[in-house]
């Protein structure tokens, strides 16, 4: 499989505190790649660095053939094909579900096109397709305030999906979901992974076990182990710092 995203010697620091310290890893095409680790291990910061929300102190992130993306602004990184979902569902509450999708779907994002262009038939179809997948087609004319927590999460994932990114970064997508919703989200990820790579930060070990193709364990800003779930689970260091003595 091809590498989509390559992180090289990445360091991010806040006032001297190194939240991510010299991390190198790579995400392969079509992978569902999980980052796990104790709180404060630097998982969220790593995602932030990839999508341009924080600027790294050192190191580089190569995406496809776009070169190093660490110098780009957030929206430029999105244009290259990296999508990001945050821990707290953040959708736009004053506009309808459909309009949320519309904003994400339209590729032309200049002032001129937002003033004059309309959605193409193809885009309409794609939005409808995604709305169906995330199960919000019926509610497309409602405002997100009327959605449940889980539905908001899906809407946000849907907004990412409709952007047709090549890599999708998800921060705790199943936090606050019940088992059933979690499973549904997992299936959704699988569907998405057909077209693009998915990077997930998650605590829910069952979820990780069920859906991960690659797992990277971070600890205090550094990369501890990387591999599939089987290997990672057996690693004594991981058991020590993360899974706890009893294991799971």
């Amino acid at each position: 499989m091809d590498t989509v995203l390559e992180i090289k010697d990445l360091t991010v620091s806040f006032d001297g505190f190194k939240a991510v310290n010299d991390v190198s890893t790579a995400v392969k095409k079509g992978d569902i790649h999980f980052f796990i680790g104790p709180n404060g291990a630097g998982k969220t910061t790593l995602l932030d660095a990839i999508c341009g929300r924080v600027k790294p102190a050192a190191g580089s992130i190569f995406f496809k053939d776009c070169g190093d993306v660490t110098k780009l602004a957030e929206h430029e990184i999105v244009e290259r094909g990296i999508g990001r979902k945050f821990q707290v569902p953040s959708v736009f509450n004053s506009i309808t579900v459909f309009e949320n999708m519309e904003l994400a779907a339209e590729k032309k994002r200049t002032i001129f096109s937002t003033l004059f262009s309309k959605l193409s038939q193809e885009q309409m179809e794609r939005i409808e397709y995604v709305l169906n997948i995330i199960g919000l087609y019926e509610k497309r004319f409602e405002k997100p305030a009327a959605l449940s927590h889980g539905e908001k999460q899906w809407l946000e994932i849907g907004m990412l999906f409709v952007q047709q990114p090549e890599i999708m970064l998800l921060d705790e997508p199943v936090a606050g979901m019940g088992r059933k919703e979690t499973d549904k989200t997992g299936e959704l990820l699988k569907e998405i992974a057909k077209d693009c790579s998915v990077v997930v930060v998650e605590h829910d070990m069952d979820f990780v076990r069920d859906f991960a193709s690659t797992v990277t364990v971070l600890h205090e800003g550094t990369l501890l182990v990387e591999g599939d779930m089987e290997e990672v689970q057996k690693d004594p260091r991981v058991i020590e710092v993360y899974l706890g003595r009893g294991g799971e």
Partner: protein
Amino acid sequence: METYVLQIFNGISVSSILMLAALGLAIIFGLMKIINMAHGELIMIGAYVTFVTQNIFMSYVDKDYFDIYFIFALLAAFVITAFVGYLLEITIIRHLYGRPLDSLLATWGVSLVLQQLARSIFGAPNVDVKSPTWLDGGILIWGDLQLPYKRLFIMLLVALCICGVYYFLYKTTTGRRIRAVMQNRTMAKSLGINTRKVDAMTFAIGSGLAGIAGCALTLLGSIGPTLGTNYIIDTFMVVVLGGVGTIIGTVAGAGIIGLGNTTFEFLTDASLGKVLVFSVVILFLQWKPQGFFTIKSRALDE
């Protein structure tokens, strides 16, 4: 030489006045996120309280003791302005938490009303407050160089107020409560803190500091219904430049604006000086949008 020394002294003096005027605002804005456009009018109330105290002393107290009125006036200005602040909080400000821009608009209405109220009670013309004789004159350093007692007194008063506020906020139980409420209202409530009381008290103390500033300003300037409007923007600039929510930021902000103002004024003229200072502030904020000192946190959210 003397001129330059005196000019530096003037700069520090202007800074100290700004600090005094901005301190209460820094608390209210920094802790409560209320943009209190009526802060200037609270300063005005402090000044009028001083005026009234003086008149009471003139009428009822022996001439020999007249001079101590100012000490009473300082206390009265603090207490009465704090009380007005308390009333404002329980009637108006209470409804505005979490809506900083709305608070700006509503308190602007408050300032209109307070100005008119002052006009109705004390009349439109300026009133005179006699400064106590022990503040007349100054220390003669050498030659012509005289440092006025009043300005030295204000500097001292500012130092006291800052230390007092620092001690109060960081070393007392009440201060801890205030900081807790401002950081997380719900949690503070759940721990047994009466948040309504704390809100009202915080606002009252911020207002009381404005009262002290008003009292001190009677030593230097005019006392009229529109007194506050002369200070309000400068003080906001101080708070924003220094960084919201830190006392040290207020000190730094006032220092920069005060010294900048006097220096530019000395080099050019008063109008251009003001334009230059504000331009520098705007440019500075481009570089550091959150001001000099910011409370850093790893929470990257809004």
